């Protein structure tokens, strides 16, 4: 385990009550400030791993180190309270006393500005588009400026254009805040564009199959997205993923 690791899993296994072995022998280290993607086929245990890292679920075996009380979590669905305005939703972590800020409402205003939702602070979730709801959800995760940001396929349900836009926005926020991000996705393109490192997972039981570094400097923009370098990494990661899935077949 490296000295600067924020998150460290050692031989983590998870067996559900119904006997499903979701994870077995999962080990990983994430360094402070890193942007890492977990990439893998559906059902390989990505969400399970993320929930364990967040402390929402207990590992059956193995050791878990993670800053449980300083975590932001973005679910696959926006998971907003429909009865509360966008601003109140983003205010929630302060309301629950999970984080303290000298000026919580200033923090909310800033978080909303970061995701471009300043004008919609007073709107209710149902009055927003799907992409805007996702942004609100991200703003809520960012508002406490958590040491660790966990994102579970946050953009999976969005169209490609919105997804690219939110990818860019996310990177901009990350570069500004430099917090540790673990990003779950099943999109090769998204993982290559976003991350410094990709952990390719394999299913049944879930564990890390291989890891691939993407040593491309930030900021990454549209020119990176259309570069041969990007295409090359995508091919490499796709092959690794195919191998990972081949292990199953």
């Amino acid at each position: 385990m490296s000295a600067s690791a924020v998150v460290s899993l050692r031989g983590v296994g998870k067996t559900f009550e119904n006997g499903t072995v979701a994870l077995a022998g999962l080990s990983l280290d994430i360094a402070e400030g890193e942007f890492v993607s977990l990439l893998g086929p559906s059902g390989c245990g990505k969400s399970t791993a993320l929930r364990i890292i967040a402390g929402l679920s207990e590992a059956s075996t193995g050791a878990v180190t993670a800053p449980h009380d300083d975590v932001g979590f973005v679910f696959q669905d926006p998971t907003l309270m429909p009865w509360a305005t966008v601003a109140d939703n983003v205010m929630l972590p302060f309301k629950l006393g999970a984080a303290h800020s000298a000026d919580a409402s200033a923090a909310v205003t800033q978080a909303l500005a970061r995701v471009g939702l300043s004008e919609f602070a007073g709107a209710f979730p149902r009055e927003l588009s799907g992409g805007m709801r996702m942004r609100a959800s991200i703003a809520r995760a960012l508002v406490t400026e958590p040491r660790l940001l966990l994102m579970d396929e946050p953009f999976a349900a969005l169209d490609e254009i919105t997804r690219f836009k939110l990818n860019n926005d996310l990177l901009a926020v990350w570069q500004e805040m430099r917090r540790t991000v673990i990003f779950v996705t099943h999109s090769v393109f998204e993982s290559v564009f976003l991350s410094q490192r990709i952990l390719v997972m394999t299913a049944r039981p879930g564990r890390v199959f291989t890891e691939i570094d993407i040593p491309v400097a930030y900021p990454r923009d549209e020119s990176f997205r259309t570069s041969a370098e990007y295409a090359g990494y995508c091919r490499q990661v796709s092959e690794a993923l195919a191998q990972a899935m081949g292990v199953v077949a």
Partner: protein
Amino acid sequence: MSDRALRTALPFVMLGLTVFVWDLAVLWFAIPPYVLPAPGVVAATLVNDAPLLLQSLLVTLTITFQGFLLAAVGGIALAIVFNQWRVADYALYPYAVILQVTPVVAIAPLLLIYLPQPLAVLACAWIVAFFPVLANTTLGLNSVDRNLLALFQLYKASRWQILLRLKLPAALPEILAGLRIAGGLSLIGAVVAEIAAGSAGAGSGLAYRIAESGYRLNISRMFAALLLLSLAGVAIFFVLSALSHALLHRWHESAVRQER
């Protein structure tokens, strides 16, 4: 004609038609007023007996309102207790169901033996109105979004915070649906108990007036009292619907006007 106007107008057209046919039938077949009074006679009775009937209406409405309030508070409170302590749920829920499925008409005479009449009537109103509130609130509290719950746990929310900030607001649409049903039912419960008390009772509610007028063959007063009862029921329904709309219209799909 717009759909909305049609929806408002048609019930009134139907009402006019019914009254007209009723009046015509009484005239045509020369039905005596002690069998079926003409609408005009009922209206006259309504005006002439107004002091008596309105006072009875007030009595019935008061009991209904008290029963409803007790049912609302009791139903919501018990649902919260069930939600927080599973043991209480297991121990008491069957009895709540038994109370609900036993017809209140059958319970009322027994209650009238053990309780003073006003209290027995109130108890009946409560018994029938309480279960829908309990059942709906329980459903609402239990159907909280799993991820929202995980989020609250992530931010170390206390049980109390989860109840107040998550479960109760999430259950609000179901609670209000329960209250809407309970409003009508508490009126029914009050009426059933008054009828059961019947001649023995010293009550003076509207249902008692109906029973009493029946013995005296004062059919037009029966109709007048019945009309007031229906109007009271309709009014209760509208008040509760308006409350529901006021609380939900900004965020809940059931109350949001769909824009196309």
